């Protein structure tokens, strides 16, 4: 039912320009004049969907994410967000960090409201927004705690709430679940799916886990290294209305995982 709703929505707003939230055009990144981290990469990220950048380490997926986020400069090529070229970080994009990047001296609520604090928004106003997103990631009641009092999974929820609270169109997630344990990770992936559904934002998600990518993504860009390139775009055709447990046993899900693994295996060997 949900997937039908989505298709209906897509056809009504099928204007070609607004359909793509982020566009990567011929982007190259060369470190120190010799190391090609990215080589003439072109890739589109559809609006309102979650796209994974999946690949082995060294394929440049985090480099690409940081360039989109404006944290790194590309050597050549351009990044378009909502059709406009961007240079450096901007309010249209928000980043979620692999190691959470929370301020250990600040409470949960101050960490979540930090993006708004930097924009000079009044304390009462930004804390109201922060509280809304603290509740959205399931951390109500922890507002006054400090990061070191929270588990790894809860810390990343704080990082996610911080990115959501600045109301950016595009969320950039750099291996957000790699530093949390496996059970937490699964719960997190389920919550992420609900969030994509609910927030209507564009998610760009870096991961090295095939299962994770297939489970959460609308679209997977399979990246390979040396030379770094997009080897394949995969759109898992999974019915997401079924329960999470059923989904993990779903034949389409398992086949997609298998297919990606066979692509990657030839590369690894």
């Amino acid at each position, binding site marked *: 039912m949900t997937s039908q709703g989505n298709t209906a929505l897509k056809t009504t707003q099928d204007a070609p320009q607004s359909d793509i939230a982020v566009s990567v055009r011929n982007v190259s990144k060369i470190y120190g004049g010799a190391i090609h981290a990215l080589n003439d990469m072109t890739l589109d990220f559809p609006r309102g969907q979650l796209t994974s950048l999946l690949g082995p380490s060294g394929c440049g997926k985090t480099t690409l994410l*940081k360039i989109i*986020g*404006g*944290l790194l400069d590309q050597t050549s090529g351009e990044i378009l967000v909502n059709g406009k070229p961007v240079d450096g*970080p*901007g*309010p249209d*994009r*928000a*980043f979620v*960090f*692999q*190691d*959470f*990047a929370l*301020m*250990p*001296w600040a409470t949960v609520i101050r960490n979540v409201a*930090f*993006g708004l*604090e*930097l*924009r000079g928004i009044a304390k009462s106003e930004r804390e109201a927004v922060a509280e809304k997103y603290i509740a959205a990631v399931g951390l109500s009641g922890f507002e006054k705690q*400090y*990061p*070191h009092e929270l588990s790894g999974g809860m810390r990343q929820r704080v990082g996610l709430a*911080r990115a959501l609270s*600045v109301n950016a169109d595009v969320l950039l997630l750099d291996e957000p679940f790699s530093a949390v344990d496996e059970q937490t990770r699964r719960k997190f992936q389920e919550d992420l799916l609900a969030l994509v559904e609910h927030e209507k934002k564009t998610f760009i998600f870096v991961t090295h886990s095939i299962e994770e990518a297939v489970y959460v993504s609308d679209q997977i860009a399979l990246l390979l290294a040396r030379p770094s390139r997009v080897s394949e775009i995969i759109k898992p055709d999974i019915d997401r209305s079924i329960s999470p447990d059923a989904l993990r046993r779903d034949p389409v899900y398992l086949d997609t995982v298998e297919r990606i693994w066979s692509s990657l295996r030839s590369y690894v060997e």
Partner: protein
Amino acid sequence: MKLFGYKLPMMSSLLIWAVLWEIVGQLDMTILLPPLSAILAKMVEIVPTNSFLSAFGVTARAFLVGTGFAVAIGIPVGVLMGKSVLIDRLLLPWVNMFLSAPLTALVPVLMVLFGIGEQTVIITTALFAIWIIVLDTRAGVKQISSSLVEMAHSFGASSFQAFFKIYIWAALPEILAGVRIGFIRAVKGVIIGQLLVSVVGFGRLFELYSANFLMEHFWALLLVLFFAAFTLAEGLGYLERKVDYYAASRAP
């Protein structure tokens, strides 16, 4: 610490030394070391006098202005050195040199440059304190996780905001340690300045007492100075312990 199963109160070692001091003093072995009880009595006698209080005022003012400059200049310079390899390369040799330099030997040069007055005393004080503050701040900034800096950048922080909202706080445990040691050095600096430059404040009293062999006065003054420095160091140590909770949890 426990001795024969009894828990010793804090600073009980000081008590042993105090008793020993009293005995040596009472034995009249040297004019340089009067009994501790006589020194404490002298302390009670001279502290409320006008000449002592005004000397204390002059010294405290030079100390506070000097350390104020050391903190206000030392912390930003330390942050810049921690952030920029270029500035670090440029300044580090000088910082290390002045940290180990016998600054007392520099005081006559300062007198030529800045005259014989309070100004030179303040600069001497600041010079004693600043280098360790710079070095510790630099060390604190160097260990800030790069993702915290990227985080501030990605959420649109200006360099001004990054300095006051990220760098200072993330490096605070090291900065406070540097300030604490810097303040202790500044106590030395202010007295040396007052002894060599303008002979005012505690410096003048020290000179007066030692030149006239007023050893009870001399020791009483030294004890006052020691307690002042001790209280300062303990106060900053208390602040340091307050940020301890995140000093350990900063690394990713």
